[in-house]
């Protein structure tokens, strides 16, 4: 095996993985913006009313922000918002619309996939939505029919490989 041979990444659209009991579907067209610093001020300016949610919090259909760290979050909007890069009044925004991928895992077996993927106590909650899932650092949110993973785009293929075998 040559270490320089990378697995070709499948196109990140449509159904990405399907197994008995669940399907993983790409959530296309979202706007994704990393915000740092004063999160309250950043969200008020970029997406007023967007909830700041932690581990396995319910992601609404509209805008929401997944907290990564004390002073960092991923703002998710229904469409790209094209924020100006750089610092202003205590916060900073960086557009990562294509830099992160969003995957919805849905189906009767989605709960079992969740249990296989992470050992975190999801019922207990946590301020940060960041967690190791299938060995990958992801942001995890709850959806009405399953769960949503936001993952850095280069890690998506490894995540999908794991889902192929789940």
């Amino acid at each position, binding site marked *: 095996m040559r270490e320089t041979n990378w697995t070709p990444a499948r196109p990140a659209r449509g159904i990405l993985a399907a197994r008995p009991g669940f399907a993983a579907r790409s959530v296309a067209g979202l706007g994704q913006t990393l915000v740092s610093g004063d999160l309250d001020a950043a969200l008020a300016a970029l997406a007023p009313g967007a909830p700041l949610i932690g*581990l396995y919090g319910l992601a609404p259909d509209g805008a929401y922000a997944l907290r*990564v*760290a*004390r002073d960092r979050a991923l703002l998710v909007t229904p469409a790209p918002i094209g924020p100006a890069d750089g610092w202003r009044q205590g916060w900073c925004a960086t557009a990562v619309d294509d830099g992160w991928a969003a995957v919805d895992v849905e189906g009767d077996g989605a709960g079992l996939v969740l249990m296989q993927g992470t*050992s*975190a*106590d999801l019922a*207990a909650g*946590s*301020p*940060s939505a*960041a*967690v*190791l899932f299938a060995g990958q*650092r992801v942001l995890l949110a709850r959806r009405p029919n399953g769960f949503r993973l936001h993952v850095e785009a280069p890690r998506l293929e490894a995540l999908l490989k794991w889902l192929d075998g789940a």
Partner: protein
Amino acid sequence: MLFPCPFCGPRDETEFHYVGEPKPRPEPAGTVGEADWADYLYVNANPRGPAREIWLHLACMDMFVMTRDTATNAVLGAETPGRAS
């Protein structure tokens, strides 16, 4: 085993990375000899029993000090230096 991230709360130990023992870096760097640098880099107290250790939570990237009993693996406390947990 669960480790306590001061920000996230209890998380599985696989989410954490050991960084090292908390100890002051010899200063000023320009006057520190090779032996002192080697001591700083490679010589650790490595006590048996309660020990203060720097850990990184790979999920939220919080760097913190955890007090852990190296004989029993019991976690005795965790704090982020300079911040009330």
